[in-house]
């Protein structure tokens, strides 16, 4: 049974905290005379930190449907809330450390950032297609603003423009798909839709709906061919925002993808621990093909990039491809592998972006691989950290990315989808090439400027905080794996 509005408030504390923080930020912006102050950043840190602490843990069987069936309060949602909030936390630190943001108004930036976070919270718990659409837009619209935050900068404006056009097209297609579902079943509750569809036979509108929704979600996780926006946006946006896009909204996109498809087009199989398809639409195969294409295109194009931000954009497309493998398996172990991968991906990807920001700070906005030349001697700590992150992203032991890939690949093999694992394996080899290019430049190429780059205390500590899990999770990952497998519990109602 779903709880009423008043009774639900108690399960809505993280969202309320973030909302309150946004309101406070707006208030502060009106009152204060110095919109460039770091105070906005600190306030946001406190708000997001409090939201994490208030998220709590959902014991097995304690999941609830809240707000008259609009959203879910379950382990799955809480996992993604904590994950996206953590990413936001790191990004706030990045923003404060980034010289790119100096001399600009900070207030709106953090308001947009936290609004996106609120959208991601809602997206990962939405159980009603109206709610789902609204929260998707709540993620998208502040993202457009973040991408275009440098009003004067041509690339930034262009990125925002493209993002808006592309995003509008994608959500248009998606909501068209939703309308089919509503027309077919007469309800907006995804669980109801699922039951209703399972009772009937497969029809053309159902097929269309499943594909059209895939377009909307595919756009959010930047799966090929719905990825076109991401390289331009990643390159044009402020680097902290790019880091944010590559982790936060992508994770939330996976959350809604899993919840929607596993509720609407599949149901838990009573006979085994797996899920079974409830309609004749073979969407797992569809997404398996998308997964293969996504990782291949992402990796192949990354090979030719010289701009590190753009390179990481393509690489993050490839990582979405790897994670999609876990999505198509209809097994708990597959979902667990995605969640585990998202955790390690959070640290290694944000860590890599952190170093990009530090280098860009020191080289007047340089973002090309050649700007990283000789970093090994100019800033050894940052260079070694980046090497760790890049090797982890490649999936080389003993780093965390390797364990993440082991879980994904093992389950794909376990479920017998051998061709996909072959594609993924080949892709990992290609990935090594472009990641190693940066490492080579850092340690083997002579820098044009040999002056040492000072890394101040806060970024140093933050790097250490991200290197540590990247190393530790490569050796001792049991607790996080346990959290991941506990967190695949979605409420069924």
């Amino acid at each position, binding site marked *: 049974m779903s709880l009423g509005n008043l009774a639900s408030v108690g399960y809505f504390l993280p969202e309320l905290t973030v909302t309150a923080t946004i309101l406070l930020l707006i208030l502060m912006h009106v009152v204060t005379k110095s919109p460039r102050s770091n105070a906005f950043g600190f306030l946001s840190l406190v708000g997001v930190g409090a939201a994490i602490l208030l998220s709590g843990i959902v014991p097995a069987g304690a999941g609830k449907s809240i707000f008259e069936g609009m959203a879910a309060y379950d382990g799955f949602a809480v996992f993604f809330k904590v994950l996206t909030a953590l990413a936001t936390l790191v990004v706030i630190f990045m923003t404060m450390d980034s010289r790119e943001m100096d001399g600009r108004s900070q207030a709106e930036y953090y308001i947009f950032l936290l609004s996106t976070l609120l959208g991601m919270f809602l997206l990962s718990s939405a159980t009603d297609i109206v709610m789902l659409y609204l929260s998707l837009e709540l993620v998208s619209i502040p993202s457009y603003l973040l991408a275009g935050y440098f009003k004067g900068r041509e690339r930034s404006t262009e990125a925002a*423009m*493209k993002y808006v*056009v*592309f995003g509008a*097209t*994608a959500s248009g*297609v998606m909501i068209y798909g939703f309308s089919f579902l509503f027309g077919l079943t007469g309800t907006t509750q995804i669980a109801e839709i699922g039951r209703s569809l399972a009772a009937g036979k*497969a029809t*053309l509108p159902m*097929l*269309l709906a*499943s*594909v*059209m929704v*895939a*377009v909307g979600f595919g*756009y959010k996780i930047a799966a*090929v*061919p*719905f990825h*076109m*926006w991401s*390289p*331009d946006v990643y390159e044009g946006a402020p680097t902290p925002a790019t880091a944010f896009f590559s982790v936060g909204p992508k994770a939330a996109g996976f959350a809604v993808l899993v919840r929607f498809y596993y509720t609407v087009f599949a149901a838990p199989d009573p006979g085994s621990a797996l899920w079974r398809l409830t309609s*004749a*639409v*073979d969407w797992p*195969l*569809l997404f398996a*093909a998308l997964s293969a294409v996504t990782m291949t*295109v992402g990796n*192949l*194009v*990354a*090979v*030719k990039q010289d701009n590190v931000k753009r390179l990481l954009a393509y690489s993050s497309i490839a990582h979405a491809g790897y994670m999609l493998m876990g999505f198509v398996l209809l097994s708990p172990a597959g979902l667990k592998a995605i969640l585990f991968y998202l955790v390690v991906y959070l640290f290694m990807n944000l860590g890599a972006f952190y170093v990009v920001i530090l280098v860009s700070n020191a080289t007047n906005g340089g973002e090309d691989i050649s700007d990283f030349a000789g970093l090994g001697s100019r800033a050894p700590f940052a260079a070694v950290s980046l090497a760790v992150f890049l090797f982890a992203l490649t999936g080389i032991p003993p780093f965390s990315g390797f364990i993440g890939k082991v879980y994904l690949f093992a389950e794909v093999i376990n479920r017998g989808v051998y061709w996909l694992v072959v594609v993924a394996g080949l892709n990992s080899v*290609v990935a090594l*090439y472009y990641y190693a290019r940066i490492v080579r430049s850092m340690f083997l190429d002579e820098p044009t400027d040999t002056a040492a780059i000072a890394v101040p205390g806060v970024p140093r500590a933050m790097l250490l905080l991200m290197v540590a899990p990247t190393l530790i999770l490569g050796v*001792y990952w*049991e607790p996080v794996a346990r959290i991941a497998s506990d967190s695949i519990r979605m409420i069924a109602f």
Partner: protein
Amino acid sequence: MVSGILDGLWLVPALPLLGVVLNGILALFVERPLLLPAAGPPSAAAGHGHGASYRTLVAFIAPGVVGAAFVVALLCVLSLAAAPPEGRIFVQVLFPWIQAGAFTAPVAFQLDPLSSVMALVVTGVGFLIHVYSVGYMSHERAFARYFVYLNLFMFAMLILVLADNYLLMFVGWEGVGLCSYLLIGFWYEKQSAADAGKKAFVVNRVGDFGFLLAMFLIFWTFGSVSYTEVFAKAPLLSGDGTLTTGLATAITLLMFLGAAGKSAQIPLYVWLPDAMEGPTPVSALIHAATMVTAGVYMIARSSALFLLAPDTMMVVAVIGAATAIFSATIGICQTDIKRVLAYSTVSQLGYMFLACGVGAFTAGIFHLTTHAFFKALLFLGSGSVIHALSGEQDMRKMGGLKKRVPVTFLTMFAATLAIAGIPGFSGFFSKDEILWKSFSSSMGSPVLWVVAAAAAGITAFYMFRLVFLTFFGTSRMDPEVEKHVHESPWTMTLPLSILAVLSVIGGFLGIPAVLGGAFGVPNLFEGWLEPVFRRAAPAAAHAAEEAAHHSAALEIGLMALSVGIALFGIGLAYFLYRARTEKPDEIARKWPTVYGVVFHKYYIDEFYEWAVVRRVVRGADWLWQMFDARFIDGIVDGAADIVRSAGDRIRRLQGGIVGGYAFSLLAGAVLLVGYILYRSIVQ
């Protein structure tokens, strides 16, 4: 199940680890900046300048943590001893480490009589050697780095002996191997030291390969790597035919390969003499008292498996006896004081394996313990001599030191009497136990006894040769060296004295029944360890206890005979190196071939160089130039070209025109719909 104080068992390995961290911080942040060229001329300034206070800190931390570990271990063992003999096993599970399918390996420690003997020997002797090192290494520039390695070694060694499963044991096994490598090559600027470290590492890898395969087979057979499970299942599985004798033989032979690598047995002993390139306290700790005995410990620990494989037992016994006599003969002709002791260690380890091979595991562990005392003492004593002689290691340039370094002389002399097997000293009890068991056990044979007894005679001979050449006679020292001869500081002589006491009285822990029985003195050592080996193999426990068939008179007689052989060896040494000092050279001239072969250590190193090293190098060369550079690189380069050109083409799709992007999205959606439609129509 006993608990309480035992819950602190984890502290035993954790304390040395704490030392690693603390000393590591000092080494990285205080010592290294001092040693860097930028910090000044690379003189002793680093040691005696303003940074010297950190050395005092290191000198307290490093021995301190090991001493504390010894105290904790002692309290744990005493608490364990309070339990009835059958209940003397305590397992502390710290946390699950690896869980994958049916495979689980926790980080867990097991304290039972066997591991408690090892833990006490390791921490006790280790503590003394740490104290000694403070004095011995006082002039060393990389003082903190040395103690980081030494503490790390203690940590790894304690993991090895306290682990409750084979995988964790393997972690310690590799850890001590790493530390051994680091410490042998401690003076890495010296080519020979770096080479010796490498040699030790590579030779050990051969053994580790065996250990790994054995572990795989164990998991495959038993579905577990935990000692308790494996040993409990062994009799059952061998009863129902799952664990055939062939399989047991394969597992144990592979384990023995690992043990032979770690414990320097034929054919993998070659690294140990070279390991003497490391600092002398390291030789005492790692290459005499503790690490090299890990192989013996492993076999004793796995006695339940070894007893199921009689063929392996025979191999172990034969290799042990062969190693004992073979390396003893090499010891005769060595002139470097540490190398004599190194070959002696190889030989004594052979005795321990002989004991295990005839099923007398208790005797093997007993000898391991007494050997730890007297061989550590011999090495530390030789270190004290080397220290006094400003680094001279050649015995031909010593002599007459008796009065100049009295404490060193007295303590080393006690150890020599112990290793030679003079009644009353510790080595007598343990070695004689092995000799008797190799004769009387159902797995023994008179041939083994003869070989072992002969080796004992040779041992007595070369040890007294060492003592005579070093301490007696007239001085052959360089005058320059002689001026600086001095007795070592108390930090070095105190450990020597304590070890000397242990070397003398340590044997009374295990008085054989034939001697002690009459006076009502029990064999404490055997009584303490007995539950372990009885639990491991109840039926076979008394396989080595065949004494009933032999009379006490025979045992006493053989004992007297072996003492006689030892005395003969001592007498011969006196004759050649005290009475008629010109004789040895005459003998060498008379039989140049025999002398040459023994002097060159039977040309084994040369043979390995020719048969293995050169061939491997040549094969690797071919693989590199032909297979790798041409074939593999060709494929790789070709694949890379394909990838790059594909990337280039796909990149062009991203034209930057937003209308094109929207088109690709819609085209993608249409393609997907088309694909699904096609599939549903086909079906």
